[in-house]
């Protein structure tokens, strides 16, 4: 009897153990099949640090041949890590600074740079040949941490046809938007949830000063301003000029957007109001504690190379920081940079960003 009992007991235990083991096995299998699914050995890089990991935002893009040229000449393979938009990128760098996500970073912009600088997430590195046109964009006190790579202007865009049909002149700048004839015509994005929204808030700070910008927004609100949370929502739903037939002919977008609305007649159906722009500058740098600092430095150098700079407009809709690099013809014609964009010093932005957004929310959203 005793034998029978223990045998029975063992058999049952074995069976449940088998079930559990099978479960674990299947779990492991599930996890394995992906790495087996054509993931081609990128994890097997321990035999030398030929991989350089670039942490960047989710708008990053690069031509295959430009990337291949770098990989061939430098001997490094680029591995991309993109944790989200510009804000999310900076925040993740800060959160992971004890165990960095990668070696180099590209895409930190002037609205967020100071936060990351203050947290000490960058290592010192200055490329040897920074173009002269990049000098004005360097950040005071952080010249050896971040290198400017590209610039872009956030500006109001207008739908030409809408204004032509109604015989109404297009607005020229901020003051016009307060006039009764432009009532209910403008849609912008929320600075708390969208980076163009924040840039536009800063444009008004640059235009009206720290004492006057909020009052301008209050008047804008009273003149029928519409605010949505995301750029795609504003551009594709509310804006009348993006093919969706939305109700509003003035939208917050980029100075480069009109290059993407060129019609069959060779003219652009939209235009940017160059007197309403804030210039976003994107920076690159070496991440403090990088596993492969040499690779990271080579990568930052590469971002300033003519190949990469010339690739920028078509790939990421931004302008090369090197003004000697040739722009695509459509950009020259339809998407010029603002001659005098509004500016706010990065240190001011760092100090006031959150409170400005709060004040803006209280005033405009209520």
């Amino acid at each position, binding site marked *: 009897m005793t034998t029978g009992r223990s045998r029975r007991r063992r058999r049952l235990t074995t069976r*449940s153990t088998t079930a559990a083991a099978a479960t674990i096995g299947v*779990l492991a299998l599930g996890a394995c*099949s992906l790495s087996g699914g054509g993931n081609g050995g990128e994890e097997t890089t321990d035999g030398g640090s030929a991989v350089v990991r670039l942490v960047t935002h989710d708008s990053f893009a690069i031509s295959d041949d430009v990337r291949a040229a770098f990989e061939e000449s430098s001997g490094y393979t680029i591995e991309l890590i993109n944790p989200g938009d510009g804000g999310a990128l900076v925040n993740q760098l800060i959160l992971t600074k004890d165990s960095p996500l*990668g070696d180099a970073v590209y895409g930190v912009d002037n609205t967020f740079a100071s936060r990351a600088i203050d947290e000490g997430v960058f290592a010192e590195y200055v490329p040897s040949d920074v173009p002269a046109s990049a000098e004005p964009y360097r950040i005071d006190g952080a010249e050896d941490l971040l290198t400017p790579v590209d610039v872009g202007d956030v500006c109001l865009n207008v739908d030409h046809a809408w204004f032509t049909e109604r015989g109404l002149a297009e607005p020229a700048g901020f003051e016009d938007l307060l006039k009764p004839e432009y009532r209910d015509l403008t849609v912008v994005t929320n600075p708390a949830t969208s980076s163009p929204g924040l840039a536009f808030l800063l444009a008004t700070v640059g235009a009206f000063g720290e004492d006057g910008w909020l009052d301008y927004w209050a008047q804008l609100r009273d003149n029928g301003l519409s605010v949505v949370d995301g750029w795609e929502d504003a551009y594709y739903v509310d804006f009348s000029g993006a093919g969706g037939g*939305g109700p509003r002919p003035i939208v917050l977008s980029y100075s480069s957007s009109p290059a*993407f609305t060129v019609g069959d007649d060779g003219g652009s159906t939209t235009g940017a109001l160059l007197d309403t722009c804030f210039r976003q500058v994107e920076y690159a740098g070496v991440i403090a504690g990088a596993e492969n600092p040499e690779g990271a430095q080579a990568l930052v150098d590469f971002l300033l190379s003519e190949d990469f700079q010339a690739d920028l407009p078509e790939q990421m809709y931004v302008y090369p920081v090197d003004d000697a690099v040739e722009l695509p013809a459509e950009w020259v014609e339809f998407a010029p940079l603002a001659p005098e964009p509004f500016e706010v010093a990065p240190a001011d932005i760092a100090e006031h960003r959150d409170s400005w957004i709060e004040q803006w929310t209280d005033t405009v959203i209520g």
Partner: protein
Amino acid sequence: MHSALRRRGGRLAWAAGWVLLAAVPLAFLAVFFAWPVATMVARGFTADGALDLSGFADVLARPRTWRVIGQTLGQAAVGTALAVLLGLPAAFVLYRRSFPGRGLVRALVTVPFVLPTVVVGVAFRSLLVPTGPLGFLGLDRTFPAVVAALVFFNYAVVVRTVGGVWERLDPRAEQAARALGATPWRAFRTVTLPALGPAIASAASVVFLFCATAFGVVQVLGGPRYGTIETEIWTQTTQFLDLRAASVLSVLQLAVVTVALAVSARSRRRRERALRLEEARVTARPLRLWRDGRPTGEAVPAVVTAVVVAGLLVLPLGMLLIRSLRVDGAWSLRHYELLGSTGDANTLSATVWEATGNSLRVAVDATLLAVVVGIAVALVVSRRPRAATARRAVGVLDGLFMLPLGVSAVTVGFGLLITLDRPPFDLRSSLVLIPIAQAVVAIPLVVRTVLPVLRAIDPRQREVAAVLGAGPARVLASVDLPLVLRSLGLAVGFAFAVSLGEFGATSFLARPDRPTLPVVIFRLIGRPGEDNYGMALAASVVLGALVAAVMALAERLRPPHAGEL
């Protein structure tokens, strides 16, 4: 005496087996969910190495916090109630009655469930803006618009979860009630509805969690004035890096979710009882709308379903489809042809078809994980142990595995980044993490799909099997397993759909070299240019079609012997 001892020994071993079966999913949940979330929340509650809970007083003092909690609860409650009210008639029509095209409608119903919220939000709003086809309703950026979208997304959960049980319900009880003179409505209310109670509660709790943590829909359709705790956590974390506020909000969200789960578990337990489940094919009668020149009782659910499907599903989906087929005011397949490219001015790092391949591969892995872990959980949770502590443990386990639906994707995503960054779990930039993160979200759905069926098993069936000499394992294999396998198709379909449509956690983890379909759609719609927008719509249509096909297939997925009982 000897035999008593033997029984005792056997029971102990069996209990050990159950504990082990519970331990594996628990370990999975602990590593890939609880640990990251706890670490992330803990960051917000420490300042200079010391515990700092002052955030609570701060955040709770903001009027905005209370407004947002109110909006979260309001949206979720109304969204859930409507999804259940509108989903029940559809579950009846689509699972209890047969008619030509039923399979198509069933597949169509699930499509919204996986569509990227940004795309759907934009499609919905295009209908509702003053210049849109439904602009006259004046619903643009209103509470009803948000709720309508929530119902749009979650309708499928109710229809399928409830329908799956309904189609196997023995019709004889209701027939008996009718024979005794009860009206169809009364028979439904007193016989069928109580039997469906657990499945309804199951579906409602899932829908509530989905609604309470909705993000993209609320942002697009509600605008800045509307928010949920989820949108607040997202803003505080990704935009302000105010981890203190984010942690407080995460704890509040957890509290809301826990209360909701407790309420739903209570109502479920009160209604739970053994049911007679039949083979599905036997029960579906042809739909009859007219008899003797008068509408039958079936006409009402049929009309409700038709109106909902046409108005709430076909209209926005049709808008999406039509716009994907229009180029410069003419019909064209151009956007679909472009799916083989990397987009206007090379917007993408992979073509949409490559991304589709990535998505499918990840979905297979995620489904496998979710189904294995989910079934283990469902089997454990379906037990009704005699010991009170064990019973309580089972109840807690049940709730624990629902939590991933109720916790912010941002908290989970950021948490994964700061916990899985060193051996033995150095997975942060590994592709393996994507199916794992998706499985964590899909497991609760698998559990909620399989559980109502398992719990409906009459315990006497198991007792009879045991009396006939079957050991516990044999009881499990011959009583529980066939029923589990029969709902497996639905579970697989749901898990697959969740994985294909998942965006929150994936967007933090996906590597640009290997983007998934929702990730490329999001990227396309975030760029100017008619082609990019058109491609985003076309890619969404592809995603929707893929899910409809997978769901239709999954429902046919029935093991050959599963019908025997």
